[in-house]
């Protein structure tokens, strides 16, 4: 199995019978191998539906999705899903299984034995920054942050070339969320998976995404680009409004110190004299 796969949406469409408009309307975009693609948009924009069409948790009604050039429509759904990591906001750890058994769920489906799973679980726990002693615990015995990490470990246990993540850090407090984001990016440095990451949080999208796909109601893709491209050149008013005014300004205080403030004048931080000297020779 390749380390990372190329994912290609080709006019992927989901239309529910009786609905006024499509849930996902002709989505076309390519995620390069090893990149994190963030699907971003308000609730109801079809981003989760788009993600779930990849592993056929939702069947598309038109168009196609290709994984390394092969249509997912031609695959047996269960086999396809075993090759694609899956992490959701509610995590969905199995309460009746230990951490080790949870992590080993997909490897077990793929026929790995207990010894293999034990080694893999230990390796993954370390990789996601958890103590190996947690392997024998049940999910109820973990904190929220620990559960999220186990959820991520479980998603990558079978070394899938593609990872689907639906607001995987959505259910934790902001501090832990930031930590999980940083940790995941560090992890991604090592594993280099192709990732589809769904969120409604522009801040998270900028932090996590190599590329961001902004979607709006009706399942339309409005803009697809790097965070810099999107912040620098919003495609239209919808994008501009959605990302908000993220321009930062430098303000000098009465004491002569320089502060960075956001569009509303709220201070975000100070600029050290060193930095000023270096920037302005």
């Amino acid at each position, binding site marked *: 199995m390749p380390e990372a796969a190329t994912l290609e949406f080709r006019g992927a469409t989901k239309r529910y019978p009786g609905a006024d408009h499509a849930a996902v309307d002709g989505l076309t975009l390519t995620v390069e191998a090893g990149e994190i693609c963030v699907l971003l948009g308000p609730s109801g924009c079809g981003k989760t539906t788009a993600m779930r069409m990849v592993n056929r*948790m939702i069947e598309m009604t038109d168009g196609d999705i290709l994984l390394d050039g092969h249509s997912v429509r031609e695959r047996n759904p*269960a*086999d396809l*899903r075993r090759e694609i990591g*899956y992490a*959701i906001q509610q995590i969905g750890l199995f*309460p*009746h*299984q230990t951490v080790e058994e949870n992590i080993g769920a997909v490897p077990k489906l793929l026929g790995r034995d207990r010894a293999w799973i034990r080694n893999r679980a230990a390796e993954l726990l370390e990789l996601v920054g958890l103590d190996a002693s947690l392997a024998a615990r049940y999910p109820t015995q973990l904190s929220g942050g620990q559960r999220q990490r186990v959820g991520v470990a479980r998603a990558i246990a079978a070394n899938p070339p593609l990872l689907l993540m639906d607001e995987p850090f959505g259910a934790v407090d902001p501090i832990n969320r930031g930590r999980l984001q940083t940790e995941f990016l560090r992890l991604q440095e090592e594993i280099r998976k192709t990732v589809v990451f769904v969120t409604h949080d522009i801040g998270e999208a900028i932090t996590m995404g190599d590329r961001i796909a902004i979607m709006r109601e009706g399942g339309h893709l409005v803009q697809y680009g790097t965070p810099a491209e999107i912040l620098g050149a919003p495609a239209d008013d919808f994008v501009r409004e959605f990302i908000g005014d993220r321009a930062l300004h430098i303000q000098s205080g009465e004491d002569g110190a320089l502060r960075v403030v956001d569009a509303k004048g709220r201070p975000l931080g100070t600029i050290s004299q060193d930095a000023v000297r270096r920037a302005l020779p």
Partner: protein
Amino acid sequence: MIGSVIIHHRSPTCESRNGLCPSWIWHHIGDYMSPLWRHVELTVVAVVVGFVIAFGLALVAHRRRWLITPITGVTGVLFTIPSLALFAVLVTSPLGFGFVSGVIPLILYTLQIIFRNVVTGLAGVPEETRDAARGMGMTDRQLLWRVEVPLALPEIVAGVRIATVTTVALATLAFFAGAGGLGDKINTDIDFKSNIAVAGALAVLLAIALDLLLLGMERTLAPWRRARAT
């Protein structure tokens, strides 16, 4: 008629006063072992067969939710049929007197409670757990046996426990169908307190023993339920 046989076993002192007679009980406890064993057989056969039927129906209804109401309805109606009437009907049927006529009503009475608990237990599995299982590539069958049934286990065992205790009680009437059991003992000398006490106590002890056995089984099969935050 059979009473007279037993009366001549009684010593004049305690038994003639119709009290609780420890020495009589001590000397006659052995006579209760065979009916007790028959009582166990009636209960175990009824619960096992009832479980197989109800569990099978519940699995079918779990995937076809519209079946839940009719099945609950039918098993509910069965539950309301007076047991004596049912024993009487079966005795007059080709089955006649015997174990089978005694055990069939007991089976029927377990269906409602076991079916309902299995269905409730399976339905109680959190949606995100189901979603994660499917998303990781479990087939419907794997989802059922690896996730849904284990998670429903506490509810399922709870149903079996109630069904078992109820069946122990109901089985005391199975003698009407000629199926024996502790009810037979009670009936043969219904006016003698020591007899009623021994037979009754054995039925109660049997119910408690089977209940504890099932509780222990649940503890062994669902260790995760006792796991608490450390």
